[in-house]
C-alpha cells in the first residue's frame, strides 16, 4: 500500500462525506447529493476490492495488468453511468459539481489506460510516477471541490442571531 495515497484518499472521502451529510441535512442540491453518493460508493468499492484484486493479480501473473487496470476502469465507468442514470431517473438537471465528478472519473479512466499501455504493451514503466500522482490527485481533488461548491452555494447557514 502506498501511504500518501491512502492518507489523501481517506481525507478526500471524509470531505465528501461531510459535504454529502450537509447537503442531505439541508435538503438542497439533489444533483450534488447524487454525484457525491456515487463518488463515495465508487471509492468505497475500490478500497474494499483492492486487496482482492491484488490477490487475483498475484495468482494470475500472466493477466495481472489486465485484471488490475480493467477493474478500476470498470468501476469508474460504472460510476459515470450511475451518475447519468440517477440524474435521468430523478429528472434532475446536473450541477457543476456533478459534471466535475463525472469528468474526474473520465480522467481516471484515461490515466488507467495510459498506465496499462505503458506497463503491459510498451513495458517501459516510464509512467509509473505519473500514474501514481495523477490518480492520487484525481481522487483527492473531489473532496475540496465538494466543500468549495458547498460554501459557494451558501448551503452552510448560520443559526441564531448573527451580528
Amino acid at each position, binding site marked *: 500500500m502506498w501511504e500518501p495515497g491512502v492518507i489523501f484518499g481517506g481525507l478526500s472521502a471524509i470531505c465528501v462525506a461531510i459535504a454529502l451529510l450537509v447537503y442531505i441535512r439541508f435538503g438542497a442540491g439533489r444533483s450534488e447529493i447524487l454525484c457525491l453518493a456515487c463518488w463515495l460508493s465508487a471509492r468505497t468499492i475500490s478500497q474494499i476490492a483492492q486487496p482482492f484484486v491484488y490477490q487475483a493479480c498475484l495468482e494470475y501473473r500472466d493477466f495481472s*495488468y489486465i485484471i488490475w*487496470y*480493467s477493474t478500476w476502469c470498470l468501476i469508474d465507468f460504472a460510476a*459515470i453511468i450511475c451518475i*447519468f442514470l440517477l440524474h435521468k431517473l430523478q429528472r434532475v*438537471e446536473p450541477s457543476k459539481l456533478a459534471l466535475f465528478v*463525472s469528468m474526474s472519473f473520465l480522467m481516471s479512466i484515461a490515466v488507467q*489506460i495510459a498506465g*496499462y499501455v505503458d506497463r503491459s504493451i510498451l513495458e517501459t514503466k516510464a509512467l509509473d510516477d505519473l500514474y501514481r500522482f495523477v490518480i492520487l490527485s484525481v481522487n483527492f481533488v473531489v473532496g475540496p471541490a465538494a466543500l468549495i461548491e458547498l460554501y459557494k452555494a451558501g448551503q452552510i447557514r448560520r443559526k441564531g442571531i448573527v451580528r
Partner: protein
Amino acid sequence: MIEFVFLVFLLFLLCVGVLIHKTLSKCADVNYQEEQVAASFSARSHRLISEGIRIDQMNYSFEKHQAYENWASKLYEYMDDYEQEVAKNLPKHGKTIAYGGIRLAKVEALKETN
C-alpha cells in the same frame, strides 16, 4: 494479442464515458449553459466592449452618432445570438420551457429542420 484486445475494450469504455459525459453536460441547468456560451462568445463581447470605449472617446459629431447606432445594432445582434445559443443548449424536457423569449420546443423544431 490479448493485451491489444483489452486495450481496445478500455478505449471503448473511455469513448462511451465521454459520450455519456457530453450527454450529461447537455442536460445542465441554465446558469451552466449561460457560462459556457458566454465563454465561447468572449472574443465577440470583448470586441464590442473595445468598440464601445472607442466610440465613447470620440468627439460629439454625426460620425459618433452613426458609429453608436451601428454599435447598438451589433449589441442587440449579439444578445439575440447569445440567447438563441443558450436556448439551443438547454435540455428538451427540462424544467425550463422558454428562455429569452424563445420557446424551447420551437428551437427543437429548428434543430430537426437543420
